[in-house]
């Protein structure tokens, strides 16, 4: 018999960013040109009403024209950005339909141009022509970007001694970003390569001529350029960091580079059936367990359950069930399953029985095809039946290295079985509900990385026992967060270090791999829509991607801000429209993306003329 605790939560504070609601029926459009007068396609155009916390962004079409969706009346700041160009700005009084053209001036300062790059282009520019450089690049991508997006580190320039000091700190700081104090144990994977890594980084981002070769890319076009992004600013945690209400660099001016994440709040997110946006807060704080953003006004409400220390219980993972409730991992002192009733903003906490694992690991949530809730535990996964309020558990095979086998992602398939990812040991578990047994699928190591290693390297890594989410081996696939196709027998696994998607047949366990279209792409979380499209956020990139598995065509959607570091992606499909929602983690925002159809664009253009 398990113990169930209900914590009636509280809605408070709210309205920290209260903004008046207006009818959104005013059209803003225009043309973006280069200094020469040439119309520019794929330019990011953003608008933000004075006093509002909501930024709306679109892209110019093949004729250089942009068409923002209908907006409330008011005075707006409007700005346009493209790589290699200075940010062009204007102000518009929007009281009817209005056109606002902008001309972009090229950036003449190479360093300014570099700092506006998204992380994926910075990483791509790192040298890899020699075996030594290729190994250092792999170390950087696996072991330095394990905790932060690459553009944060690579925006800086230090000499070799300076990079050594950075590594001195980084190799002892765990993923919570807090220095553990004197005598902290160093990450052996980084410690071993500190000297060549510091030299490699100093050649790339040091005082001399850079070894990096930046290659730009085509701006968004076609479907990618029909995207509309709505970003909602969230208040920073007032008890940490700089102490401003909002991020001093919210990523909206690319030339400012990648912001600090100290004080950020949202980790995972979802869209409610009520039209509002919800997020879980994973960093320790006093005020919020789950946040709620009014999608029309941007007003933020905090829903809080206390932990045993009197602070807000932290939360991780988030999934919406068919009734509109959200489920998440909540840490009130022992990690349990939280349920948010969005009609009453009430949090209920369900604890697993004492003889069962609590929730844990990097908890990810899913609702299976039978309506049961699945959540990660440190050593497997639990299933919760919302009707009977009972848990059942599936465990990973026992291991001496408990840290290494910890669970990251969890998912439920349409047959009602559960799945979990042991990220550090490249293993996927299946909880077979019919038999009650655990089945495992071992993902193959990256052979190219194994082949690259010297005998000395192999010997070192073979004896290394500290692998974890943030300390992967060079050949690791790194299965992180996953998503099932609820209309097929497919589990999609985002392999962060392998740069692949694993496609696993949930019945036969047949497994195949699909390489991401760009080697810098490190998938984090996967969500699958009703048309079988696979959506993924990218840990190291300011983009999200969609794969159509029927055609193997990838589509990338650029975010309108820099330094995103997104860890979660969720979907809401209603009325034939798909909305993609994600916490824009580092910039402390919630983001929603919709793609407009050609017909919708045609109608909008006609109205805007």
């Amino acid at each position, binding site marked *: *018999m*398990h*113990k*169930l*605790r*209900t*914590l*009636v*939560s*509280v809605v*408070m*504070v709210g309205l*920290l960013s209260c903004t008046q609601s207006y009818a959104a029926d005013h059209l803003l459009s225009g043309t973006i040109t280069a200094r020469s007068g040439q119309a520019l396609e794929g330019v990011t155009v953003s608008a933000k009403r004075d006093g509002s916390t909501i930024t709306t962004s679109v892209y110019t079409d093949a004729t250089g024209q942009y068409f923002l969706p209908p907006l409330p009346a008011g005075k707006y700041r409007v700005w346009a950005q493209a790589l290699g160009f200075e940010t062009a700005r204007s102000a518009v009084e929007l009281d009817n339909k209005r056109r606002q053209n902008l001309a972009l001036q090229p950036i003449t300062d190479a360093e300014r141009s570099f700092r506006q790059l998204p992380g994926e282009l910075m990483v791509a520019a790192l040298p890899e022509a020699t075996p030594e450089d290729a190994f250092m690049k792999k170390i950087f991508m696996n072991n330095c970007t394990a905790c932060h997006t690459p553009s944060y580190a690579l925006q*800086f*320039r*230090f*000499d070799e*001694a*300076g*990079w050594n*000091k950075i590594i001195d*700190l980084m190799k002892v700081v765990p993923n*919570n*970003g*807090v*220095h553990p*104090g004197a005598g902290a144990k160093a990450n052996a994977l980084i410690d071993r390569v500190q000297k060549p890594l510091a030299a490699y980084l100093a050649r790339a981002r*040091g*005082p001399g001529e850079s070894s990096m070769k930046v290659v730009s890319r085509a701006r968004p076009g076609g479907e990618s350029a029909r995207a509309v992004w709505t970003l909602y600013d969230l*208040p920073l*945690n*007032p*008890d*940490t*960091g*700089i*102490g*401003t209400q909002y991020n*001093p*660099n919210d990523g909206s001016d690319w030339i*400012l*580079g*990648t*912001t*600090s994440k*100290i*004080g950020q709040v949202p980790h995972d997110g979802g869209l409610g059936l009520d039209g509002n946006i919800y997020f879980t807060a994973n*960093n*320790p*704080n*006093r*005020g*919020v367990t789950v946040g709620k953003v009014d999608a029309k006004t941007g007003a933020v409400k*905090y829903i*809080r*359950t*206390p932990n045993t220390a009197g*602070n*807000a219980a932290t939360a991780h993972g988030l999934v919406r069930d068919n009734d509109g409730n959200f489920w998440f991992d909540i840490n009130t002192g022992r990690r349990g399953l939280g349920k948010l009733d969005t009609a009453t903003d009430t949090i209920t906490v369900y604890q697993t029985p004492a003889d069962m694992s609590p929730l844990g690991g990097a908890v990810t949530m899913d609702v299976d095809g039978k309506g049961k809730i699945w959540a990660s535990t440190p050593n497997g996964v639990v299933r919760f039946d919302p009707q009977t*309020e009972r848990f059942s558990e599936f465990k990973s095979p026992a291991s001496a290295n408990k840290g290494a086998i910890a669970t990251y992602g969890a998912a439920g398939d349409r047959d009602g079985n559960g799945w979990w990812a042991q990220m550090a040991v490249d293993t996927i578990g299946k909880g077979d509900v019919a038999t009650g047994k655990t089945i495992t699928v071992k993902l193959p190591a990256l052979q190219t990385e194994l082949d690259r290693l010297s005998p000395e390297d192999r010997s070192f890594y073979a004896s290394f026992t500290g692998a974890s989410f943030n300390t992967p081996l060079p050949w690791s696939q790194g299965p992180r967060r996953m998503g099932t196709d609820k209309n097929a027998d497919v589990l999609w696994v985002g392999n962060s270090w392998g740069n692949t998607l694993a496609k696993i047949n949930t019945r036969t366990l047949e497994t195949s791999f699909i390489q991401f279209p760009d080697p810098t792409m490190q998938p984090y979380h996967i969500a699958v829509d009703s048309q079988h499209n696979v959506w993924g956020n990218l840990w190291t990139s300011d983009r999200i991607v969609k794969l159509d598995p029927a055609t193997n065509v990838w589509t990338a959607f650029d975010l309108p801000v820099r330094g995103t570091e997104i860890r979660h992606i969720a979907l809401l499909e209603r009325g034939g429209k798909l909305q993609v929602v994600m916490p824009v983690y580092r910039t402390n925002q919630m983001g929603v993306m919709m793609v407009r159809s050609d017909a919708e664009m045609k109608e909008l253009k006609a109205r805007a003329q």
Partner: protein
Amino acid sequence: MMRNTVVAMVLACAFTTGAAAQSTNTTLTEKQIHGRQLFAQSCGICHLQASLNANTYGPPLNKASANANNEVMRIFILEGSARMPAFKHYLKTADVDAIIDYVRTVPVPAATTAAR
């Protein structure tokens, strides 16, 4: 099955006051605002509280830091220290000026009696 119900009360001020975060005033100049952004982005990882109740790796900075001497602070920023990298290859002179200008707006915490 046991069910415990706890009604939690939250004070409206619970998440609106920053007891331990970097204290700032709201009447900063444009230069100080620029300095604040640079400080948060470039210096915060060591000099700002990374997590609730956590210690910082470097000393928290305020108007009394570096013996309240701007030139001493400038040398620290440009040349670094035993644990801090030199920022002279990254920050421009105007950036360093802005950071110092901002730090000098941060009051000395009440419990701090001497410059760190």
